[in-house]
C-alpha cells in the first residue's frame, strides 16, 4: 500500500508474516549471515564500503587515527623563534566559554602601569572543560587552539587546573597536528603577533618557560655591550614581575607585600610592591596561598570595604574543613548584602593537598560576590604554610579575584 504525497509516498512496511516462507527458512538465512561474518572476521575490513571483516584497531600499540579537525582541550600557542605568546588577553575566549573555565589577567607594563597586549596569567580548568571549541573559534589572534592529546587520565585532579606554563605550545607543534587549519590562520596570526610584540616592553608576553632564557640572553647581550652606553632594554633582575618566572620566595614576598598594602586600607593607594620582606619564611608552596589571600584582600579593598588585617594563622591540615565552612558562610553573608564578619578561622592557609578545593571555592565565591558589587566578605588572609598542591587553586583564585576587582578601583601593584 502506498499513498502518494509531495515528493514521496507513504509506504506501509511489509510485515514478515505477509510473505510466504517455509517455516524455519528465515532462521537458516539468519544463521547464514552470522556464519559469513564469522568467516570474514579472520580478515581485516578494507574500508568504509566494506561491511565484512574486522576493523579493530589495536589502540595502545597502534596509535589512534585522529582527523585534523579533532578537538580535545584548548592550549595556548607561542612563537617558536621569539618565544612570544600570541595571546593578547582580549578575554574573548573567557567570555564565550560555556562552562566558564577560562580565566586570565592582562599584563601591565611594570614602569607605566599601562595594559600591554599580553597575558600575565592564564588558567583553564580542564576538568570542567566541555571541549566545545568555541574558544579556539572566537580567538581573533589564533592564540588558543584545540589540542589533540586525549590521554589525560590522571588521579591528580588539581593537575587539571592548567596554568599558562603548561598550556603553552609552540606554533610548530600546532602546525604539525593541524597543518591545513594552521595554514588558513597563519598569515593573519603572525601579522597580529608582530603588532603585539611591538607593544610589549621587555619580556612581557614571552612564554613562561622561555622567559628566563630570553632574559638571560638579553642580559648577556647587554653585558657585551657594556662598554658602549648602556642599552635601554637591559632588564634588571627585578623588572617585569608578571612575566618573569620568579623564584617562589620572591613571589611569596611580593604577594605578602601586596596583601599588606592593599588589604588594610582600601582607599589608600597600593603600596608599590615587591619591596617585600624577604624575611617571610616562604616555602615554595607558600606563594599561591599568599596570592589568594592577597587577591581577596584586594577585592575587599576595591569594594571600599574595610578588610580586616589578615589574621595570620598557622593552620593545621585539619583546618581545611573550617576554612571551607568559613568560605561558604562568608559567601552567603555576602549574597545577602550583609557585612560579613571577619572570618575567625584562617581559611586560606592551612593547605593540605585536599584543601585547594576549598580555597578555590572560596575564591570563586568571593569573586561572584564582588561581581555583584556587594560587600565582599572579609578576606581572611593568613600567613600561609601551604602544602605544595594548594598553590594552583590559590593562584586561580587570585586571578579571578583580580578580574572581579578590576572594575571599580584598580589598585594594582606591579602585577
Amino acid at each position, binding site marked *: 500500500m502506498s499513498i502518494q504525497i509531495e*515528493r514521496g509516498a507513504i509506504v*506501509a512496511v511489509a*510485515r514478515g508474516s505477509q510473505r510466504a516462507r517455509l517455516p524455519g527458512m528465515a*532462521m537458516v538465512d*539468519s544463521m547464514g549471515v552470522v556464519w559469513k561474518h564469522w568467516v570474514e572476521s579472520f580478515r581485516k575490513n578494507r574500508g*568504509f564500503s566494506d561491511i565484512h571483516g574486522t576493523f579493530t584497531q589495536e589502540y595502545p600499540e597502534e596509535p589512534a587515527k585522529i*582527523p585534523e579537525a579533532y578537538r580535545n582541550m584548548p592550549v595556548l600557542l607561542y612563537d617558536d623563534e621569539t618565544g612570544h605568546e600570541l595571546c593578547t588577553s582580549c578575554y574573548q575566549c573567557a567570555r564565550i566559554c560555556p562552562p566558564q573555565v577560562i580565566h586570565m589577567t592582562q599584563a601591565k607594563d611594570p614602569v607605566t602601569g599601562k595594559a600591554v597586549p599580553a597575558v600575565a596569567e592564564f588558567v583553564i580548568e580542564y576538568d570542567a572543560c566541555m571541549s566545545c571549541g*568555541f574558544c579556539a573559534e572566537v580567538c581573533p589572534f589564533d592564540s588558543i587552539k584545540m589540542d589533540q592529546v586525549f590521554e589525560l587520565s590522571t588521579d591528580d585532579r588539581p593537575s587539571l587546573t592548567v596554568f599558562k606554563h603548561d598550556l603553552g605550545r609552540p606554533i610548530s607543534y600546532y602546525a604539525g597536528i593541524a597543518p*591545513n587549519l594552521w595554514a588558513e590562520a597563519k598569515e593573519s596570526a603572525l601579522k597580529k603577533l608582530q603588532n603585539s610584540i611591538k607593544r610589549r616592553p621587555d619580556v612581557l608576553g614571552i612564554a613562561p618557560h622561555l622567559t628566563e632564557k630570553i632574559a638571560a640572553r638579553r642580559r648577556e647581550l647587554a653585558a657585551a655591550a657594556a662598554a658602549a652606553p648602556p642599552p635601554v632594554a637591559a632588564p634588571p633582575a627585578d623588572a617585569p614581575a608578571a612575566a618573569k618566572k620568579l623564584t617562589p620566595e620572591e613571589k611569596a614576598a611580593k604577594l605578602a607585600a601586596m596583601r599588606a598594602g592593599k588589604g588594610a586600607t582600601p582607599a589608600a593607594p597600593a603600596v608599590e610592591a615587591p619591596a617585600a620582606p624577604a624575611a617571610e619564611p616562604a616555602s615554595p608552596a607558600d606563594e599561591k596561598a599568599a596570592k589568594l589571600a592577597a587577591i581577596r584582600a584586594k577585592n575587599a579593598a576595591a569594594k571600599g570595604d574595610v578588610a580586616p588585617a589578615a589574621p595570620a594563622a598557622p593552620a593545621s591540615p585539619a583546618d581545611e574543613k573550617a576554612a571551607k565552612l568559613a568560605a561558604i558562610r562568608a559567601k552567603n553573608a555576602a549574597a545577602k548584602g550583609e557585612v560579613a564578619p571577619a572570618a575567625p578561622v584562617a581559611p586560606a592557609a592551612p593547605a593540605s593537598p585536599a584543601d585547594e578545593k576549598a580555597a578555590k571555592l572560596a575564591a570563586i565565591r568571593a569573586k561572584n560576590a564582588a561581581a555583584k558589587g556587594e560587600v565582599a566578605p572579609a578576606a581572611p588572609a593568613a600567613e600561609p604554610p601551604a602544602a605544595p598542591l594548594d598553590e594552583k587553586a590559590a593562584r586561580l583564585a587570585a586571578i579571578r579575584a583580580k578580574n572581579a576587582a578590576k572594575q571599580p578601583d584598580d589598585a594594582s601593584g606591579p602585577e
Partner: protein
Amino acid sequence: MLKTEELQINIGPQHPSTHGVFRMLVTVDGETIMDLKPVFGYLHRNHEQIAEQNTYLQNMPYTDRLDYFNSMANNHAYALAVEKLVGIEVPERAEYIRVLMVELTRILNHAGALGFLINDMGMWQTQLAFGMREREKILDLFESASGARLMCNYFRFGGVARDLPADFMPRLADLLKAMPGFVDEMERLLRDNEILMQRSEGIGILPRDLALAYSVTGPVLRGSGVAYDVRKAEPYSIYDRFDFDVPVGSVGDVYDRFLVRVEEMRQSRRIIEQIVAQLPDATGSHINPKARQNVKPPVGDVYGRVESPKGELGFYLVSDGSGKPYRYKVRAPSFINLTPLGDMCRGYKVADVVVILGSIDIVMGEVDR
C-alpha cells in the same frame, strides 16, 4: 480456584535494560504486567535552567548533551529556532551540509537503536555489533568534519562551524556504497527471523488513537500507522527538495517500529544520495558571513522543530531582547514517547517490558534533561 496476589516491583533505576537511569514501577500478577508507571528524573541536570543563564550560542554545545546519540539533530533544531527568532539566512551549501549530517545521524541512531532492541530481545550483541560498526564509520565522518564524534557542536547560527574537509565526500561515497548492503543484510538477519517475530509481533501495541492522544512522534507514531513526519508535514530547511517516502506500520507493535526504522535508514540514504548529487560546490559558504553568533534576538518567542531520529524535537525560546533566552524549553521526543509506556505494557509479560522499552528508543539524557 487458584488465587493470585498482585505484587509491586521496581525495574530500575539501576538496570541494564532501562537504557539509563529509568525506573518502572510495575504491578505484576505472576509474570503478567497489570500496571506500569514510568518514573523519570534520575538524570535531571537542570538543562533548561542552565540554558537560561547562558547566551544563545553557549547553549549550542549543551544541546549536544540532550540526546547524545544525535547531537547533530539537536543542534539543528536549536539553530533553526534561533535563526527563526533572529531572522538569519542560511546559505545553500550550509543547508545541504546540515541535512546531510542530520540524515547521517538518523542512520547511525537507527543502527544503534535496532542493535539495542535486538539486544533486549536476547540476541546478545550480534546485531548490536553490526550496527555499532556502521555507526562507527559515520562517527568517523562526524569527527573529521566537526572535531568530535558525539558532542559535535557543529552547527552555528547561519550555517555550520566549518566546511567539510577535503576527504569527506569521497569517504561518504564509500560509506554509501556499504549502506544498502548493511541494511539488506540486517533485514535478512532479522526481518523474517522466527524468534524476532515471536518476541515482537503483537507485543506492545500502541493503537493509532492512543498514540495521537499521547502526542507520540517519530518512528513510534509511524509504527502505529500515522504518517506524520515533520519533514513532510512542515518541511524545514531544504527537505522540500528531496524525494523520500514515509514508512508507516499497520499494527503499532514492536515489530512495526522495527520495520519502520529499517525503512527509514533506506530513506535517509536516499536523501543523502540526492544531497551528494546536489551539493553546491561553493567552498567557503558554509556559514552566512553576516550572521552574528552573539545574537540578541528581538522580543518574542519561537518554536523551532525538526524530525529528530526519535521524533519531533522542538525548542521553544522566549526572548526578552537580551543576549540570553528568557525561557528555554525542550520538547524532547524521548520523553513524550515514553509516557504511554504503561498502556503499551499492560497485559504483556515482564520479559516484554524491556523489548517494548527498547522499541521506543529512548535516551535518558533527553528524557530527563
